[in-house]
């Protein structure tokens, strides 16, 4: 997680006045990201109207059932140059939000919960009995970061990401997205590139927004399989006599093929002693470990490629384990455990569990890479390349060369396929925003009707 993490917990970190803690700006990639470019981005490219439409969830004031103050009760936070952090910002409409962003030029914008009252006015309510300042709605969110997979990727570590390990994110998206739709019945799901090395997921159905912390925790735990740290070798323990249907589907539809295909090809997880020892440790039976270790240590130098060797060893391991699985309950699903360890999504549980947790807004620019946090299409996520995401400098370049086409006066950012950002905006609108708003309007309509109906009944004699 990024350095903002401590401030996102609890409401006691209320730093409203700007503090100049660090005069030297820490920009790693000044060619890709700098304040000047950022200003232009916020001036011409950031999709204020789209964000406002999304977060208003249909409460645009056009229907009597609308809550015109809904948007104004949403918390935002800004991280400014010099690490200054401003929480509990709220805006009564799109232009107020736009003005604030154009004044502050935040390096990062986070979106928080919708509260019972304006975050701005929270001090008037904090302690009293009935009218408390408390979150009332918040998307169900997930954060997957590739650094959480460092123990199973050999190409990169830390902040780096490449085409060999990014597929771990791809398979994570597939597993989680499928489950959110099939198991939980959610429909309005937005996946966003975090700008450097991970993905965020925003579940925006009204049912999701109204989940309590306990229910969010339940969903997060439902997704949790990996329970690892340095102290245990067997980080995935699948008990019972079969996999739960969710895990079985994930295994059969996504994980198994990914492990035996792309993962092996990219990572060759059995090709060296150091690598295969890690896997042998996951087998709880010492004799089997010994048997395999001997086979592989004494293998003659073969002409096989790393990948082929790796695959061959995997076959051997599988055969050995399948034949010996009666030996002990912990061996029953050892093969699956190994596959899950390497491939199953590792979400950051804390992000999902609490309503007041803040998460970076889509279409922000990542300060370290200069890349825009663009949406990812879960149905085409195999094609997403984090290294091909438009950077600030590319966008600025495009503006300069494109000339008048970009210098448009209207509210909406153009979504033509010809511009770098246009494709993303178009996708955001057509696959996510429009269906969402349609459903929101229906929801507002129907709950208004039922309210009217109820009050009509109460007047009946």
């Amino acid at each position, binding site marked *: 997680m990024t350095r903002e993490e401590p401030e996102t917990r609890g409401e006691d970190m209320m730093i409203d006045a700007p503090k100049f803690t660090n005069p030297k700006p820490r920009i790693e990639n000044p060619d890709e990201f700098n304040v000047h470019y950022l200003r232009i981005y916020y001036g011409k490219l950031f999709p204020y109207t789209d964000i406002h439409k999304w977060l208003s969830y249909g409460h645009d004031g056009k229907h009597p059932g609308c809550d015109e103050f809904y948007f104004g009760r949403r918390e935002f936070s800004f991280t400014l140059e010099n690490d200054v952090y401003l929480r509990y910002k709220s805006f009564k409409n799109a232009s107020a939000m736009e003005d604030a962003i154009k004044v502050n030029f935040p390096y990062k914008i986070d979106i928080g919960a919708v509260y019972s009252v304006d975050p701005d006015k929270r001090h008037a309510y904090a302690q009293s009995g009935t009218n408390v300042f408390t979150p009332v709605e918040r998307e169900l969110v997930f954060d997957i970061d590739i650094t959480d997979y460092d123990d199973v990727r050999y190409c990169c570590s830390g902040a780096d990401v490449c085409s060999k390990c990014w597929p771990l994110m791809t398979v994570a998206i597939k597993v989680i997205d499928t489950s959110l739709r*099939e*198991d939980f019945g959610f429909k309005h799901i937005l996946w966003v590139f975090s700008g450097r090395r991970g993905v965020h997921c925003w579940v925006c159905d009204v049912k999701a927004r109204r*989940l309590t912390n306990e*229910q969010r925790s*339940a969903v997060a*735990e439902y997704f949790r399989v990996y329970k690892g740290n340095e102290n245990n070798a067997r980080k995935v323990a699948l008990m*019972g*006599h079969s996999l*739960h249907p969710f895990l079985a589907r994930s295994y059969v539809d996504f994980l198994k093929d990914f492990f035996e295909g792309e993962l092996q090809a990219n990572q060759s997880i059995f090709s060296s002693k150091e690598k295969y020892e890690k896997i042998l440790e996951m087998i709880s039976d010492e004799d089997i470990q010994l048997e395999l270790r001997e086979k592989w240590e004494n293998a003659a130098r073969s002409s096989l490629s790393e990948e082929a060797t790796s695959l061959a060893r995997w076959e051997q391991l599988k055969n050995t384990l399948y034949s010996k699985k009666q030996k002990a309950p912990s061996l029953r699903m050892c093969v699956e455990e190994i596959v899950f360890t390497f491939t199953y999504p590792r979400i950051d549980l804390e992000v999902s569990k609490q309503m007041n947790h803040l998460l970076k807004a889509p279409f922000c620019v990542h300060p370290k890479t200069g890349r825009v946090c663009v949406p990812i299409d879960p149905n085409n996520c195999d094609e997403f390349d984090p290294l091909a995401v438009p950077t600030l400098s590319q966008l600025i370049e495009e503006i300069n060369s494109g000339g008048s086409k970009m210098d448009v006066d209207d509210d909406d950012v153009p979504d033509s396929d010809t511009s770098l950002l246009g494709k993303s905006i178009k996708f955001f609108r057509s696959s996510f925003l429009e269906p969402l708003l349609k459903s929101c309007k229906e929801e507002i309509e129907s709950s208004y009707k039922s309210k009217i109906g109820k009050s009509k009944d109460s007047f009946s004699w």
Partner: protein
Amino acid sequence: MEVIRSQKRTASNDAASIPTLPLYFTAPPMEVRLEEFELFAIDRLRVLKGVSDGLARGKNPKEMDDLVSTLWKEHMRHSDVSEMLNKDIISHFVLRLVYCRSDELKKWFLSMETALFRHRFRLQNFEAQRATVGEFGLQYKAVTGAELESLKEKLGQVVRSLGQISPTIETIYYKVPFEEVPDLVAGRRVFIQKGNAFVAGSQLVSLVVTQFRSHISKALILTNRKWTTTIREREKDRLTPIVEGLSSSYLGPDYSQSNEYADISLKDIDQVAKSSFPLCMRHLFEKLREDHHLKHGGRMQLGLFLKGVGLKLEDALAFWRAEFTKKVGSEKFDKEYAYSIRHNYGKEGKRTDYTPYACQKIISSAPGVGDHHGCPYRHFSDDNLRAALGRMGLSSRGMEDVMDKVRNKHYQLACTMTFEAVYGTTCDAGINHPNQYFEESQKILKPKTPTAPV
């Protein structure tokens, strides 16, 4: 719920067409006669105590179902169904008042009421169970027929993933929004599809019980608040004494086995008597030291108390012998007194291991001439009592409070107040057994130090 004196009860709840288990969400708007207030509560308490015993004896769920059925029939039955329901509800709410007053009481009540609810739920037929579940406002729909068939494989997988080797599913499943069963979702203990969780019948019981427990737990906290702020004071002459007396009735250990605090040795006994004995036992002890004799009632009351406090048989014999032989001689002691001491410890005759007397028994005893047993708060004259309390170290202010309780015949409360005054602490549970007084006192005087090896 309004409590009135000897008046005919007005309209009670309509019995529902399917009798459901009451969930005790609100006190019903009815009038209750004062006598019924106490009697109903006592009957329910008998049921709860029975449940407690059953659990302590390790009965399995089916045995507990049978036990609860028997207990309920025995104590809570009424020929008129609506009367039975009224008694159920009234007794529960009265006991809430009684058992909200300390953490220990709350814990016991919550456990027993939840267990009672669990087994009464299990005893209901399918229809009634569904009705009960509906009363919690949870949306459960039974899954049957074709839909159940189509899900069989997935449900079987869940069953196997939870450790069962065969994929036989239960006969009844419920379709429930996943939000209502977070525990089951978190543990991947249910199959979910399009936002619905498929909950097995056996899982339903624990769900409903969880809901019930949480609701009663919260209610107890609210009741306690109301009790301490308004009810206790407002009802101090009418309901409060009943409430405070009820918790002593059937609850509590019988002190036939001493615990870690209560290993006293003969050399310490005088000191311990002064510091930790309740007034009744202190008096007996002092009289014994003074007269070197106690009559039968006193020997029983003090002797059993000392047993509960941890005095071993050999030590007890030595103790009584040491005193009595100062007056009667050792042969007579062996012939006439040793036998009954051994009898108390279950070593003679029908070998019953007698339990030390609780306050109720002591208060209701009738000490005659030359007797020193009984309850000083009841059996002493005012002057004698004041003198005794003075010797315990009470201030005149403290004494007045205690005497006030005595005047109103609240003897155990008087003893409790004495305890509080002597040790400078509150005793929310109230004294209902001399050995309890002793143990509580020891807890205060000897906090948390490990006992020396015997």
